[in-house]
Protein backbone atom coordinates (compact mmCIF):
# COMPACT_ATOMS: atom_id res chain seq x y z
CA UNK A 1 0.00 0.00 0.00
CA UNK A 2 1.44 3.34 -1.02
CA UNK A 3 1.12 6.24 1.40
CA UNK A 4 -0.17 9.40 -0.28
CA UNK A 5 -1.01 12.03 2.32
CA UNK A 6 -2.08 12.70 5.89
CA UNK A 7 -3.84 15.84 7.01
CA UNK A 8 -6.43 17.17 9.43
CA UNK A 9 -9.79 18.90 9.16
CA UNK A 10 -11.63 20.80 11.83
CA UNK A 11 -15.21 19.69 12.45
CA UNK A 12 -17.84 21.13 14.80
CA UNK A 13 -16.84 19.08 17.81
CA UNK A 14 -13.72 17.18 16.76
CA UNK A 15 -10.68 17.09 14.55
CA UNK A 16 -10.58 14.59 11.74
CA UNK A 17 -7.25 13.08 10.75
CA UNK A 18 -7.39 11.73 7.23
CA UNK A 19 -4.78 9.35 5.90
CA UNK A 20 -4.81 8.69 2.19
CA UNK A 21 -3.28 5.57 0.66
CA UNK A 22 -3.45 4.53 -2.97
CA UNK A 23 -5.93 1.78 -2.08
CA UNK A 24 -7.97 3.29 0.73
CA UNK A 25 -8.58 6.32 2.94
CA UNK A 26 -8.67 6.16 6.73
CA UNK A 27 -10.47 8.70 8.91
CA UNK A 28 -9.85 9.09 12.64
CA UNK A 29 -11.98 11.34 14.85
CA UNK A 30 -10.05 12.92 17.69
CA UNK A 31 -10.97 14.98 20.69
CA UNK A 32 -10.85 18.73 20.15
CA UNK A 33 -10.02 19.65 23.74
CA UNK A 34 -6.96 17.39 23.87
CA UNK A 35 -6.10 16.45 20.31
CA UNK A 36 -3.72 13.51 20.12
CA UNK A 37 -3.07 11.04 17.35
CA UNK A 38 -0.69 8.13 17.04
CA UNK A 39 2.16 8.46 14.56
CA UNK A 40 2.33 6.31 11.46
CA UNK A 41 5.78 7.58 10.55
CA UNK A 42 7.50 4.57 12.06
CA UNK A 43 5.91 2.52 9.28
CA UNK A 44 5.64 5.23 6.58
CA UNK A 45 8.64 7.54 7.12
CA UNK A 46 7.33 10.17 4.68
CA UNK A 47 4.40 10.73 7.04
CA UNK A 48 6.63 12.63 9.44
CA UNK A 49 6.44 15.97 7.58
CA UNK A 50 2.66 15.64 7.36
CA UNK A 51 2.47 15.03 11.10
CA UNK A 52 4.80 17.88 11.99
CA UNK A 53 2.72 20.14 9.75
CA UNK A 54 -0.46 18.90 11.39
CA UNK A 55 0.94 19.95 14.75
CA UNK A 56 1.88 23.39 13.46
CA UNK A 57 -1.46 23.87 11.71
CA UNK A 58 -3.88 22.52 14.31
CA UNK A 59 -1.93 21.84 17.49
CA UNK A 60 -2.54 18.12 17.22
CA UNK A 61 -0.03 16.22 19.34
CA UNK A 62 1.64 13.28 17.62
CA UNK A 63 2.21 10.38 19.94
CA UNK A 64 5.22 8.11 19.44
CA UNK A 65 6.76 10.29 16.73
CA UNK A 66 10.54 10.42 16.41
CA UNK A 67 10.53 14.10 15.48
CA UNK A 68 8.54 16.79 17.28
CA UNK A 69 10.23 19.88 15.85
CA UNK A 70 8.08 22.50 14.13
CA UNK A 71 8.03 22.24 10.34
CA UNK A 72 6.31 25.27 8.85
CA UNK A 73 6.65 27.53 11.85
CA UNK A 74 10.20 28.83 11.89
CA UNK A 75 12.40 30.54 14.45
CA UNK A 76 10.36 33.70 14.83
CA UNK A 77 6.86 32.28 14.48
CA UNK A 78 4.78 32.98 17.63
CA UNK A 79 4.50 29.97 19.91
CA UNK A 80 1.22 28.10 20.42
CA UNK A 81 -0.49 29.63 17.41
CA UNK A 82 -2.23 27.12 15.17
CA UNK A 83 -3.43 29.09 12.17
CA UNK A 84 -5.46 26.42 10.41
CA UNK A 85 -7.96 26.35 13.27
CA UNK A 86 -11.19 28.07 12.38
CA UNK A 87 -10.97 30.43 15.34
CA UNK A 88 -7.68 31.86 14.06
CA UNK A 89 -8.57 34.85 11.91
CA UNK A 90 -5.56 37.17 12.22
CA UNK A 91 -4.48 38.84 9.01
CA UNK A 92 -1.06 39.72 10.32
CA UNK A 93 1.38 38.35 12.89
CA UNK A 94 4.25 40.00 14.73
CA UNK A 95 7.63 38.32 14.95
CA UNK A 96 8.26 36.49 18.17
CA UNK A 97 11.55 36.06 19.95
CA UNK A 98 14.09 33.94 18.06
CA UNK A 99 13.94 30.28 19.05
CA UNK A 100 16.78 28.23 17.54
CA UNK A 101 15.94 25.22 15.42
CA UNK A 102 17.87 22.09 16.26
CA UNK A 103 19.26 20.63 13.07
CA UNK A 104 19.88 16.95 12.51
CA UNK A 105 23.65 16.70 12.60
CA UNK A 106 26.24 14.02 13.00
CA UNK A 107 29.02 14.62 15.52
CA UNK A 108 32.51 13.17 15.77
CA UNK A 109 36.12 14.09 15.39
CA UNK A 110 36.72 16.14 12.24
CA UNK A 111 33.05 16.07 11.26
CA UNK A 112 31.74 19.52 10.44
CA UNK A 113 28.45 21.09 9.36
CA UNK A 114 27.73 23.11 6.23
CA UNK A 115 24.67 25.35 6.06
CA UNK A 116 23.35 26.30 2.64
CA UNK A 117 20.52 28.73 2.07
CA UNK A 118 17.75 29.82 2.29
CA UNK A 119 19.12 32.24 -0.33
CA UNK A 120 21.21 30.27 -2.82
CA UNK A 121 23.88 31.38 -5.25
CA UNK A 122 21.84 31.05 -8.42
CA UNK A 123 18.44 32.23 -9.56
CA UNK A 124 16.53 29.69 -7.55
CA UNK A 125 13.85 29.39 -4.90
CA UNK A 126 14.72 29.68 -1.20
CA UNK A 127 15.25 26.61 0.98
CA UNK A 128 17.80 25.36 3.44
CA UNK A 129 20.15 22.38 3.24
CA UNK A 130 22.17 21.33 6.23
CA UNK A 131 25.10 18.97 5.66
CA UNK A 132 27.22 16.92 8.01
CA UNK A 133 30.58 16.49 6.30
CA UNK A 134 33.67 14.35 6.67
CA UNK A 135 35.92 16.30 4.35
CA UNK A 136 34.37 16.20 0.89
CA UNK A 137 32.08 13.31 1.77
CA UNK A 138 28.48 13.91 2.76
CA UNK A 139 27.54 11.92 5.85
CA UNK A 140 24.06 13.31 6.23
CA UNK A 141 21.86 16.09 4.93
CA UNK A 142 18.74 17.65 6.35
CA UNK A 143 16.35 19.43 4.01
CA UNK A 144 14.57 22.30 5.68
CA UNK A 145 11.99 24.31 3.78
CA UNK A 146 8.82 26.37 4.16
CA UNK A 147 10.51 29.73 3.66
CA UNK A 148 7.93 30.40 0.94
CA UNK A 149 4.99 29.50 3.18
CA UNK A 150 2.19 31.81 2.09
CA UNK A 151 -0.63 30.01 3.96
CA UNK A 152 -2.52 29.25 0.76
CA UNK A 153 -4.66 26.56 2.40
CA UNK A 154 -6.02 29.20 4.77
CA UNK A 155 -6.14 31.94 2.13
CA UNK A 156 -8.64 30.12 -0.08
CA UNK A 157 -10.99 29.11 2.76
CA UNK A 158 -14.35 30.78 2.39
CA UNK A 159 -13.76 31.53 -1.28
CA UNK A 160 -15.96 30.58 -4.18
CA UNK A 161 -14.23 27.73 -6.10
CA UNK A 162 -13.98 29.80 -9.26
CA UNK A 163 -12.64 32.79 -7.33
CA UNK A 164 -9.88 30.57 -5.89
CA UNK A 165 -8.85 29.28 -9.33
CA UNK A 166 -6.32 32.04 -10.18
CA UNK A 167 -4.61 31.54 -6.80
CA UNK A 168 -4.41 27.78 -7.28
CA UNK A 169 -2.99 28.34 -10.78
CA UNK A 170 -0.14 30.30 -9.18
CA UNK A 171 0.84 27.98 -6.32
CA UNK A 172 3.74 26.54 -8.32
CA UNK A 173 4.54 28.24 -11.62
CA UNK A 174 6.26 25.21 -13.16
CA UNK A 175 3.24 23.01 -12.48
CA UNK A 176 0.48 25.54 -13.08
CA UNK A 177 -1.39 23.47 -15.67
CA UNK A 178 -1.32 20.42 -13.40
CA UNK A 179 -2.68 22.41 -10.46
CA UNK A 180 -5.39 23.88 -12.64
CA UNK A 181 -6.40 20.45 -13.92
CA UNK A 182 -6.58 19.08 -10.37
CA UNK A 183 -8.79 22.00 -9.39
CA UNK A 184 -10.88 21.51 -12.52
CA UNK A 185 -11.47 17.88 -11.52
CA UNK A 186 -12.66 18.97 -8.08
CA UNK A 187 -15.02 21.61 -9.48
CA UNK A 188 -16.38 19.18 -12.05
CA UNK A 189 -17.04 16.51 -9.40
CA UNK A 190 -18.75 19.11 -7.24
CA UNK A 191 -21.01 19.97 -10.16
CA UNK A 192 -21.75 16.34 -10.80
CA UNK A 193 -21.04 16.82 -14.49
CA UNK A 194 -18.72 15.10 -16.92
CA UNK A 195 -16.34 17.04 -19.14
CA UNK A 196 -16.65 16.57 -22.89
CA UNK A 197 -13.87 14.44 -24.32
CA UNK A 198 -12.58 17.23 -26.53
CA UNK A 199 -11.99 19.42 -23.48
CA UNK A 200 -10.21 16.59 -21.63
CA UNK A 201 -7.88 16.15 -24.58
CA UNK A 202 -7.18 19.86 -24.81
CA UNK A 203 -6.21 20.04 -21.17
CA UNK A 204 -4.14 16.86 -21.42
CA UNK A 205 -2.31 18.38 -24.39
CA UNK A 206 -1.38 21.47 -22.37
CA UNK A 207 -0.24 19.28 -19.47
CA UNK A 208 2.14 17.40 -21.76
CA UNK A 209 3.42 20.70 -23.14
CA UNK A 210 4.09 21.88 -19.60
CA UNK A 211 5.96 18.63 -18.94
CA UNK A 212 8.06 19.09 -22.08
CA UNK A 213 9.03 22.64 -21.05
CA UNK A 214 9.99 21.52 -17.55
CA UNK A 215 11.97 18.50 -18.76
CA UNK A 216 13.82 20.49 -21.42
CA UNK A 217 14.85 23.08 -18.85
CA UNK A 218 16.06 20.31 -16.54
CA UNK A 219 17.98 18.45 -19.23
CA UNK A 220 19.91 21.67 -19.81
CA UNK A 221 20.48 22.50 -16.17
CA UNK A 222 21.47 18.96 -15.14
CA UNK A 223 24.14 18.90 -17.86
CA UNK A 224 25.25 22.40 -16.86
CA UNK A 225 25.70 21.31 -13.26
CA UNK A 226 28.03 18.61 -14.55
CA UNK A 227 30.05 21.30 -16.32
CA UNK A 228 28.63 20.77 -19.80
CA UNK A 229 27.29 24.23 -20.62
CA UNK A 230 26.74 23.56 -24.32
CA UNK A 231 23.77 21.35 -23.46
CA UNK A 232 22.24 24.16 -21.42
CA UNK A 233 22.46 26.50 -24.39
CA UNK A 234 20.91 23.84 -26.62
CA UNK A 235 18.08 22.85 -24.26
CA UNK A 236 17.26 26.34 -23.04
CA UNK A 237 16.81 27.36 -26.66
CA UNK A 238 14.34 24.51 -27.14
CA UNK A 239 12.64 25.33 -23.84
CA UNK A 240 12.20 28.93 -24.92
CA UNK A 241 10.59 27.76 -28.16
CA UNK A 242 8.30 25.47 -26.18
CA UNK A 243 7.31 28.33 -23.89
CA UNK A 244 6.52 30.48 -26.89
CA UNK A 245 4.34 27.66 -28.19
CA UNK A 246 2.55 27.64 -24.82
CA UNK A 247 1.94 31.36 -25.24
CA UNK A 248 0.76 30.86 -28.81
CA UNK A 249 -1.79 28.29 -27.63
CA UNK A 250 -2.91 29.83 -24.32
CA UNK A 251 -1.86 33.50 -24.50
CA UNK A 252 0.39 32.89 -21.50
CA UNK A 253 3.96 31.55 -21.35
CA UNK A 254 3.18 29.36 -18.34
CA UNK A 255 -0.45 28.61 -19.23
CA UNK A 256 -1.77 30.53 -16.20
CA UNK A 257 -5.57 30.52 -16.21
CA UNK A 258 -5.56 28.45 -19.41
CA UNK A 259 -7.60 25.54 -18.08
CA UNK A 260 -11.11 26.80 -18.66
CA UNK A 261 -14.45 25.22 -19.43
CA UNK A 262 -14.30 26.48 -22.99
CA UNK A 263 -11.86 25.64 -25.76
CA UNK A 264 -11.44 27.28 -29.14
CA UNK A 265 -9.74 25.45 -32.01
CA UNK A 266 -5.96 25.55 -31.80
CA UNK A 267 -3.45 26.51 -34.46
CA UNK A 268 -2.56 22.86 -35.07
CA UNK A 269 -0.52 23.72 -38.15
CA UNK A 270 2.04 25.61 -36.08
CA UNK A 271 1.83 23.06 -33.26
CA UNK A 272 2.43 20.10 -35.58
CA UNK A 273 5.38 21.82 -37.20
CA UNK A 274 6.93 22.65 -33.86
CA UNK A 275 6.46 19.05 -32.64
CA UNK A 276 8.26 17.74 -35.75
CA UNK A 277 11.08 20.19 -35.15
CA UNK A 278 11.34 19.29 -31.46
CA UNK A 279 11.34 15.57 -32.16
CA UNK A 280 14.15 15.91 -34.65
CA UNK A 281 16.16 18.16 -32.29
CA UNK A 282 15.70 15.77 -29.36
CA UNK A 283 16.82 12.84 -31.45
CA UNK A 284 19.95 14.77 -32.31
CA UNK A 285 20.44 15.81 -28.67
CA UNK A 286 20.20 12.24 -27.46
CA UNK A 287 22.82 11.00 -29.91
CA UNK A 288 25.06 13.92 -29.04
CA UNK A 289 25.03 13.66 -25.23
CA UNK A 290 25.21 9.87 -25.19
CA UNK A 291 28.63 10.30 -26.80
CA UNK A 292 30.12 12.60 -24.12
CA UNK A 293 31.97 10.28 -21.72
CA UNK A 294 32.90 13.00 -19.20
CA UNK A 295 29.21 13.80 -18.75
CA UNK A 296 28.27 10.21 -17.95
CA UNK A 297 31.26 9.97 -15.69
CA UNK A 298 29.52 12.55 -13.52
CA UNK A 299 25.99 11.14 -13.99
CA UNK A 300 26.54 7.41 -13.51
CA UNK A 301 26.30 6.14 -9.91
CA UNK A 302 25.84 9.70 -8.57
CA UNK A 303 23.01 10.26 -6.08
CA UNK A 304 21.61 6.75 -6.04
CA UNK A 305 18.17 6.17 -4.58
CA UNK A 306 17.75 2.41 -4.28
CA UNK A 307 14.40 0.88 -5.31
CA UNK A 308 13.93 -0.29 -1.72
CA UNK A 309 14.25 3.21 -0.31
CA UNK A 310 12.24 4.80 -3.11
CA UNK A 311 9.40 2.49 -2.14
CA UNK A 312 9.85 2.84 1.61
CA UNK A 313 9.65 6.63 1.38
CA UNK A 314 6.68 6.46 -1.01
CA UNK A 315 8.36 8.67 -3.59
CA UNK A 316 6.51 9.69 -6.72
CA UNK A 317 7.16 10.97 -10.22
CA UNK A 318 10.54 11.10 -11.92
CA UNK A 319 12.37 10.20 -8.71
CA UNK A 320 10.27 7.05 -8.18
CA UNK A 321 10.28 5.97 -11.81
CA UNK A 322 14.05 6.38 -12.08
CA UNK A 323 14.30 3.88 -9.20
CA UNK A 324 12.12 1.32 -10.88
CA UNK A 325 8.73 2.18 -9.37
CA UNK A 326 5.95 2.19 -11.95
CA UNK A 327 4.05 5.10 -10.38
CA UNK A 328 2.30 7.42 -12.79
CA UNK A 329 -1.23 8.84 -12.58
CA UNK A 330 -1.40 8.61 -16.34
CA UNK A 331 -1.54 4.83 -16.21
CA UNK A 332 -5.24 4.79 -17.12
CA UNK A 333 -7.35 3.94 -20.19
CA UNK A 334 -7.66 7.56 -21.34
CA UNK A 335 -3.90 8.09 -21.52
CA UNK A 336 -3.08 4.59 -22.72
CA UNK A 337 -5.44 5.12 -25.62
CA UNK A 338 -3.48 8.23 -26.55
CA UNK A 339 -0.08 6.62 -26.62
CA UNK A 340 1.08 6.79 -23.01
CA UNK A 341 3.85 4.33 -22.21
CA UNK A 342 5.11 3.90 -18.66
CA UNK A 343 8.76 4.97 -18.59
CA UNK A 344 11.03 3.58 -15.90
CA UNK A 345 14.74 3.21 -15.20
CA UNK A 346 16.29 0.95 -12.62
CA UNK A 347 19.58 2.50 -11.44
CA UNK A 348 18.08 5.37 -9.46
CA UNK A 349 21.06 7.65 -10.13
CA UNK A 350 21.38 11.03 -11.85
CA UNK A 351 21.91 9.22 -15.15
CA UNK A 352 18.62 7.34 -14.71
CA UNK A 353 16.69 10.51 -13.98
CA UNK A 354 18.31 12.22 -16.97
CA UNK A 355 17.51 9.38 -19.37
CA UNK A 356 13.98 9.15 -18.01
CA UNK A 357 13.39 12.79 -18.89
CA UNK A 358 14.64 12.17 -22.42
CA UNK A 359 12.22 9.25 -22.80
CA UNK A 360 9.34 11.17 -21.32
CA UNK A 361 9.80 14.10 -23.68
CA UNK A 362 9.66 11.67 -26.61
CA UNK A 363 6.49 10.07 -25.24
CA UNK A 364 4.88 13.46 -24.54
CA UNK A 365 5.48 14.55 -28.14
CA UNK A 366 3.73 11.39 -29.29
CA UNK A 367 0.78 11.97 -26.97
CA UNK A 368 0.43 15.61 -27.98
CA UNK A 369 0.12 14.54 -31.61
CA UNK A 370 -2.84 12.34 -30.69
CA UNK A 371 -4.47 14.85 -28.37
CA UNK A 372 -4.38 17.57 -31.00
CA UNK A 373 -6.38 15.53 -33.51
CA UNK A 374 -9.56 16.47 -31.66
CA UNK A 375 -9.63 20.17 -32.40
CA UNK A 376 -13.34 21.02 -32.35
CA UNK A 377 -14.54 23.89 -30.15
CA UNK A 378 -15.95 22.66 -26.88
CA UNK A 379 -17.66 24.03 -23.78
CA UNK A 380 -18.98 22.79 -20.48
CA UNK A 381 -21.56 24.65 -18.42
CA UNK A 382 -20.57 25.58 -14.87
CA UNK A 383 -23.13 26.49 -12.21
CA UNK A 384 -23.01 26.90 -8.45
CA UNK A 385 -21.27 24.14 -6.51
CA UNK A 386 -22.87 21.47 -4.39
CA UNK A 387 -21.78 20.36 -0.95
CA UNK A 388 -19.23 17.63 -0.49
CA UNK A 389 -15.67 16.44 -0.24
CA UNK A 390 -13.71 15.86 -3.45
CA UNK A 391 -10.22 14.73 -4.42
CA UNK A 392 -8.11 14.73 -7.55
CA UNK A 393 -4.84 13.19 -8.74
CA UNK A 394 -2.80 14.64 -11.59
CA UNK A 395 0.65 13.70 -12.90
CA UNK A 396 2.54 16.99 -12.95
CA UNK A 397 5.97 17.33 -14.52
CA UNK A 398 7.46 16.45 -11.10
CA UNK A 399 5.11 13.64 -10.16
CA UNK A 400 1.79 12.75 -8.60
CA UNK A 401 -0.13 15.79 -7.39
CA UNK A 402 -2.88 15.16 -4.86
CA UNK A 403 -5.51 17.79 -4.14
CA UNK A 404 -8.64 17.68 -2.04
CA UNK A 405 -11.32 20.15 -1.02
CA UNK A 406 -14.42 20.32 1.13
CA UNK A 407 -17.05 22.57 -0.39
CA UNK A 408 -20.00 23.78 1.63
CA UNK A 409 -22.71 26.18 0.42
CA UNK A 410 -20.61 26.94 -2.65
CA UNK A 411 -17.63 28.01 -0.53
CA UNK A 412 -14.33 26.28 0.20
CA UNK A 413 -14.40 24.89 3.72
CA UNK A 414 -11.00 23.17 3.67
CA UNK A 415 -8.39 22.99 0.93
CA UNK A 416 -5.43 20.66 1.01
CA UNK A 417 -2.86 19.93 -1.63
CA UNK A 418 0.17 17.69 -1.56
CA UNK A 419 2.75 18.58 -4.15
CA UNK A 420 4.82 15.64 -5.44
CA UNK A 421 7.83 17.52 -4.09
CA UNK A 422 6.53 17.15 -0.53
CA UNK A 423 7.17 13.40 -0.81
CA UNK A 424 10.38 13.57 -2.80
CA UNK A 425 12.11 16.25 -0.69
CA UNK A 426 11.94 13.81 2.17
CA UNK A 427 13.82 11.20 0.15
CA UNK A 428 16.54 13.59 -1.09
CA UNK A 429 18.84 12.98 1.87
CA UNK A 430 18.86 9.25 1.07
CA UNK A 431 20.75 10.01 -2.16
CA UNK A 432 23.57 11.86 -0.39
CA UNK A 433 25.76 9.41 1.57
CA UNK A 434 28.70 8.26 -0.52
CA UNK A 435 28.67 11.43 -2.61
CA UNK A 436 30.81 14.53 -2.34
CA UNK A 437 29.24 17.86 -1.51
CA UNK A 438 30.18 19.24 -4.93
CA UNK A 439 27.75 16.76 -6.44
CA UNK A 440 24.84 17.99 -4.36
CA UNK A 441 23.65 20.62 -6.89
CA UNK A 442 23.75 17.99 -9.60
CA UNK A 443 21.73 15.48 -7.57
CA UNK A 444 19.27 18.14 -6.46
CA UNK A 445 18.76 19.37 -10.03
CA UNK A 446 18.26 15.84 -11.32
CA UNK A 447 15.17 15.61 -9.09
CA UNK A 448 14.16 19.22 -9.78
CA UNK A 449 11.63 19.58 -7.00
CA UNK A 450 9.40 22.55 -6.35
CA UNK A 451 9.83 24.76 -3.28
CA UNK A 452 6.72 26.85 -3.87
CA UNK A 453 4.42 23.85 -4.23
CA UNK A 454 6.02 22.18 -1.23
CA UNK A 455 5.82 25.21 1.06
CA UNK A 456 2.38 26.40 -0.09
Amino acid at each position, binding site marked *: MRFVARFAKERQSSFEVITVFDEKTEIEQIDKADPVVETIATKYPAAIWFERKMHDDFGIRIEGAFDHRPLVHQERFPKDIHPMRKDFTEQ*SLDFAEYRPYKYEAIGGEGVFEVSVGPIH*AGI*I*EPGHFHFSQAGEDILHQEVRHF*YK*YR*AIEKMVEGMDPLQAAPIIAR*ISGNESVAYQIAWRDIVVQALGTVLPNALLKRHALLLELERIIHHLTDLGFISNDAGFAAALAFCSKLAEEAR*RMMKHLTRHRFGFDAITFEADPLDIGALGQWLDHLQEQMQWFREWVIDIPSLWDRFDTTGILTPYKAKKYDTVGIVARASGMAVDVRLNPFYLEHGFRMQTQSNGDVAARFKLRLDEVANSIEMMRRFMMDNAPSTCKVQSEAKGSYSAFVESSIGELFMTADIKNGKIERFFVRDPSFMNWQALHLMMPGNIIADFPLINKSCDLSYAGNDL
Partner: protein
Amino acid sequence: MIRFWEKRAKTSVVTEHPELETQIDQIRRSIKDEVKRKFAGSLAIRMVDSGSCNACEAECNALSNPYYDLERLGIRFVASPRHADVMLLSGLLTFNMYHHVMDAWAQIPEPKWSVTLGDCPLMNAPFQKSFAIKGPVAEHLPVAHHIPGCPPDPETIMQGLLEFLKKI
Protein backbone atom coordinates in the same frame (compact mmCIF):
# COMPACT_ATOMS: atom_id res chain seq x y z
CA MET B 1 32.38 16.15 -31.18
CA ILE B 2 32.50 16.49 -34.97
CA ARG B 3 28.73 16.15 -35.02
CA PHE B 4 28.50 19.00 -32.54
CA TRP B 5 30.58 21.41 -34.61
CA GLU B 6 28.66 20.45 -37.70
CA LYS B 7 25.42 21.27 -35.87
CA ARG B 8 26.93 24.44 -34.47
CA ALA B 9 27.87 25.70 -37.93
CA LYS B 10 24.45 24.84 -39.32
CA THR B 11 22.53 26.46 -36.46
CA SER B 12 24.66 29.59 -36.47
CA VAL B 13 23.51 32.39 -34.18
CA VAL B 14 19.83 32.04 -33.36
CA THR B 15 18.18 35.27 -34.27
CA GLU B 16 14.94 36.38 -32.77
CA HIS B 17 11.68 35.81 -34.51
CA PRO B 18 11.52 38.55 -37.15
CA GLU B 19 8.62 40.42 -35.52
CA LEU B 20 10.61 40.75 -32.29
CA GLU B 21 14.02 41.30 -33.76
CA THR B 22 14.08 45.07 -34.18
CA GLN B 23 12.39 45.72 -30.87
CA ILE B 24 14.71 43.50 -28.88
CA ASP B 25 17.70 44.79 -30.76
CA GLN B 26 16.73 48.30 -29.78
CA ILE B 27 16.33 47.36 -26.13
CA ARG B 28 19.64 45.56 -26.18
CA ARG B 29 21.47 48.49 -27.67
CA SER B 30 20.05 51.08 -25.31
CA ILE B 31 20.59 48.86 -22.24
CA LYS B 32 24.20 48.43 -23.25
CA ASP B 33 24.71 52.19 -23.47
CA GLU B 34 23.09 52.86 -20.09
CA VAL B 35 25.06 50.12 -18.34
CA LYS B 36 28.25 51.46 -19.82
CA ARG B 37 27.52 55.00 -18.77
CA LYS B 38 26.27 54.41 -15.25
CA PHE B 39 27.92 51.20 -14.10
CA ALA B 40 31.24 51.25 -15.92
CA GLY B 41 30.05 48.51 -18.23
CA SER B 42 28.81 45.97 -15.73
CA LEU B 43 25.60 45.93 -13.73
CA ALA B 44 25.47 43.20 -11.08
CA ILE B 45 22.07 41.92 -9.96
CA ARG B 46 21.35 39.76 -6.94
CA MET B 47 18.04 38.02 -7.52
CA VAL B 48 16.14 37.20 -4.33
CA ASP B 49 12.94 35.19 -4.25
CA SER B 50 10.86 36.15 -1.21
CA GLY B 51 7.99 33.75 -1.86
CA SER B 52 7.06 33.60 -5.54
CA CYS B 53 5.57 30.74 -7.54
CA ASN B 54 8.92 30.27 -9.35
CA ALA B 55 7.66 31.66 -12.65
CA CYS B 56 9.56 34.94 -12.18
CA GLU B 57 12.73 32.94 -11.53
CA ALA B 58 12.10 30.84 -14.63
CA GLU B 59 11.82 34.01 -16.71
CA CYS B 60 15.03 35.39 -15.22
CA ASN B 61 16.75 32.15 -16.10
CA ALA B 62 15.32 32.46 -19.60
CA LEU B 63 17.18 35.77 -19.93
CA SER B 64 20.35 33.68 -20.25
CA ASN B 65 19.05 31.51 -23.08
CA PRO B 66 20.44 32.08 -26.58
CA TYR B 67 17.41 34.14 -27.60
CA TYR B 68 18.03 36.88 -25.02
CA ASP B 69 21.56 36.36 -23.67
CA LEU B 70 21.42 39.20 -21.16
CA GLU B 71 25.03 38.85 -20.14
CA ARG B 72 26.31 40.24 -23.40
CA LEU B 73 24.86 43.59 -22.33
CA GLY B 74 27.03 43.68 -19.25
CA ILE B 75 24.20 42.68 -16.93
CA ARG B 76 25.05 39.75 -14.70
CA PHE B 77 23.22 37.83 -12.01
CA VAL B 78 25.70 37.43 -9.16
CA ALA B 79 25.93 34.84 -6.41
CA SER B 80 26.47 37.15 -3.46
CA PRO B 81 24.68 40.34 -2.43
CA ARG B 82 28.11 41.75 -1.65
CA HIS B 83 28.89 41.73 -5.37
CA ALA B 84 25.63 43.39 -6.33
CA ASP B 85 24.44 46.85 -7.34
CA VAL B 86 20.79 45.90 -7.50
CA MET B 87 18.52 43.53 -5.58
CA LEU B 88 15.86 42.14 -7.87
CA LEU B 89 13.09 40.96 -5.60
CA SER B 90 10.24 38.64 -6.53
CA GLY B 91 7.53 37.10 -4.38
CA LEU B 92 5.13 38.11 -1.65
CA LEU B 93 7.75 38.73 1.06
CA THR B 94 6.67 35.89 3.33
CA PHE B 95 6.87 35.95 7.11
CA ASN B 96 9.54 33.24 6.96
CA MET B 97 11.69 35.04 4.35
CA TYR B 98 11.42 38.53 5.83
CA HIS B 99 14.63 38.54 7.88
CA HIS B 100 16.63 36.78 5.17
CA VAL B 101 15.60 39.36 2.59
CA MET B 102 16.50 42.21 4.93
CA ASP B 103 19.82 40.52 5.61
CA ALA B 104 20.59 40.21 1.89
CA TRP B 105 19.63 43.87 1.40
CA ALA B 106 21.89 44.97 4.24
CA GLN B 107 24.81 43.07 2.67
CA ILE B 108 24.66 44.99 -0.61
CA PRO B 109 27.21 47.82 -0.56
CA GLU B 110 26.09 51.40 -1.25
CA PRO B 111 25.06 52.75 -3.65
CA LYS B 112 22.31 50.20 -4.10
CA TRP B 113 18.83 49.95 -5.53
CA SER B 114 16.00 47.48 -5.10
CA VAL B 115 13.84 46.59 -8.07
CA THR B 116 10.67 44.56 -7.57
CA LEU B 117 9.81 41.91 -10.13
CA GLY B 118 6.33 40.65 -10.96
CA ASP B 119 2.95 41.38 -9.43
CA CYS B 120 3.58 39.65 -6.08
CA PRO B 121 5.87 42.13 -4.26
CA LEU B 122 3.32 44.92 -4.58
CA MET B 123 0.46 42.54 -3.71
CA ASN B 124 -1.03 42.93 -7.18
CA ALA B 125 -1.16 39.17 -7.89
CA PRO B 126 -4.36 37.22 -7.16
CA PHE B 127 -3.02 36.21 -3.72
CA GLN B 128 -4.74 37.81 -0.77
CA LYS B 129 -3.07 39.10 2.34
CA SER B 130 -2.50 36.41 4.94
CA PHE B 131 -0.72 36.20 8.29
CA ALA B 132 2.19 34.51 6.52
CA ILE B 133 2.75 37.43 4.13
CA LYS B 134 4.59 40.63 5.05
CA GLY B 135 4.08 42.33 1.67
CA PRO B 136 3.68 44.77 0.07
CA VAL B 137 7.44 45.16 -0.13
CA ALA B 138 7.34 48.95 -0.41
CA GLU B 139 6.34 49.11 3.27
CA HIS B 140 9.68 47.60 4.25
CA LEU B 141 12.22 48.60 1.59
CA PRO B 142 12.86 51.59 -0.66
CA VAL B 143 11.70 50.39 -4.08
CA ALA B 144 13.55 52.18 -6.87
CA HIS B 145 11.65 50.60 -9.73
CA HIS B 146 8.94 48.01 -10.38
CA ILE B 147 8.67 45.57 -13.27
CA PRO B 148 5.04 44.41 -13.50
CA GLY B 149 3.67 41.16 -14.92
CA CYS B 150 2.56 37.73 -13.78
CA PRO B 151 5.23 36.80 -14.58
CA PRO B 152 6.91 39.52 -16.68
CA ASP B 153 8.32 37.83 -19.80
CA PRO B 154 12.02 38.20 -20.61
CA GLU B 155 11.39 41.12 -22.97
CA THR B 156 9.44 42.96 -20.29
CA ILE B 157 12.23 42.35 -17.79
CA MET B 158 14.79 43.76 -20.23
CA GLN B 159 12.54 46.71 -20.92
CA GLY B 160 12.01 47.21 -17.17
CA LEU B 161 15.74 47.15 -16.46
CA LEU B 162 16.23 49.73 -19.18
CA GLU B 163 13.58 52.00 -17.66
CA PHE B 164 15.25 51.61 -14.29
CA LEU B 165 18.64 52.51 -15.75
CA LYS B 166 17.20 55.60 -17.39
CA LYS B 167 15.53 56.64 -14.17
CA ILE B 168 18.55 56.61 -11.87
